[in-house]
């Protein structure tokens, strides 16, 4: 596969996606895109200062850079990072034509949280025009 995107949220469970992606991009010319969004459906409903968002963005960028370093140490693959402040679907939509696969770990939301916020993975599976691999969240 030429271009695979992995969605990360800063947690360890989502990093499984990177482990799964590595064998898929182990070819000349392949590229791994690490994506993290600072968007939070709960925070988006309450007034939060600009400073808060800037801090979140800095943290996200720092996290992705660390991850890039770890990946490149293991495998000489081209890694790109993308930090976005939009929801995942809106972030990925402009990229869908260039991606062979999007990998994410399901949020594992259930009950009220699923009802209130919906499932990000379902939204992506239904809304994206490229292939999507959803890995179940590990307990």
């Amino acid at each position, binding site marked *: 596969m030429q271009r695979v995107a992995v969605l990360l949220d800063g947690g360890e469970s989502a990093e499984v996606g990177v482990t799964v992606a590595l064998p898929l991009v182990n070819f000349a010319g392949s590229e791994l895109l690490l994506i993290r969004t600072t968007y939070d459906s709960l925070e988006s409903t309450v007034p939060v200062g600009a400073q808060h968002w800037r801090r979140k963005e800095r943290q996200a960028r720092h996290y992705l850079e660390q991850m890039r370093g770890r990946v490149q140490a293991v495998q000489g693959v081209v890694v790109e990072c993308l930090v976005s402040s939009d929801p995942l679907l809106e972030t990925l939509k402009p990229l869908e034509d260039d991606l*062979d696969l999007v990998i994410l770990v399901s949020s594992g939301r259930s009950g009220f949280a699923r009802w209130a916020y919906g499932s990000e993975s379902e939204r992506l599976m*239904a809304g994206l*025009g490229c292939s999507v*691999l959803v890995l*179940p969240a590990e307990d």
Partner: protein
Amino acid sequence: MSSGFQTILVELAAPLQEQSALEKASELWRSFPEADFLFFHSPKGKEVVAGLPGTDAFQSLEQRNREEAERHARELRDRFPKEAKVQLLVEKILDPRDLLELAQERNADLLVLNALPRGGFFSRWVQGDRAAWMLRHGEIPVLVARADGRKEPTFAGVLPEEPTEFKAAGQTPADLDSAFPPYRSREHEVSVFLEVLEKAGPHTAVLEPMGSALAEALASTDLKVTPFCHDSLPADLEPQNSFLLTFSGMAAVRQLEDQQALLKFCGEKLSREGVLIADLFNPWLRFPVDTVVLSRDADGEEQVELPDGTQVRRNIRVLKRDYLNQFQTVEKLYWVDHDEEEVETRREVLESRFYSRFEFQHLLTSHNFHLEAIWGSRYPGEMVFLARKGTR
């Protein structure tokens, strides 16, 4: 979770559909050459929208579908790298539970599904439902594969631009029928009809107009076929063993009073336990019945060769659809290649009534018919009802 996949369950799509899961599996094989690939293909269970298993026609259709699925799976295997470890499974998958059961039974650690065409709420609902159900209830990774190029078929519910005028516009359906004898290849449906009709007995009445393929097939049997019109029901018709209400015939029966009169007439003229076959259309069923046709709507054309060697291509598009009153205006375009230089274009516009499944079942029941089966077909939303006259 380990980084590699050992057993990958891959969905094969129906003929003519894009084999996006198969293509994605081929890419996975490059990364996991030691993995076992299990290709599963479900016989056309979705062709049988509903029905009562046990009837001969039903079983015969089931058998035929299974054989076709096996042949199709073998053909697709040949398109996959020879070195890969592949096993073919032909299993009836009716809902996500069957799929999960299959995955668990085979210890699959990745499931690759074909993405269904997107286009609106309904397709999203179907797509989301299947893959999401797997994620919620199983602990298996799911890959929803979309074909490269991401070309999405046009949803026919969106009205196209104004129809183009053609030089032969104004031709009547009768002109077209006489000009173009058998242009359709509906052997599958026709053979199912014939099987039922022949078993019912020699006397069959057919609501006009008959499709040419059907007319030809009926002519080759020993059946005594009597055509009739819904607006001039022949009062002196002798008792019939079966009634065949064709697709285009039923599309013309637009008023409830006419529908009731037609079914009452069929009931009166049918012999004891005679059968009634009605071919109907419901646009809402386009996705569950057959997604293949969506791509045909976009740019597909039917092409046949007439006995004299003339090539005829046909395409259909929906000009207007009125969901409240349940009718639509359809434009049929024909291109006749007389020779390399001259291509004649003909256009036919017709209005057709469509029905919901329970609406028609209710009509049948209230006229003393017992529904035995409903089939779908390769045409979008087409439903074929098989009902038997009750004894009361």
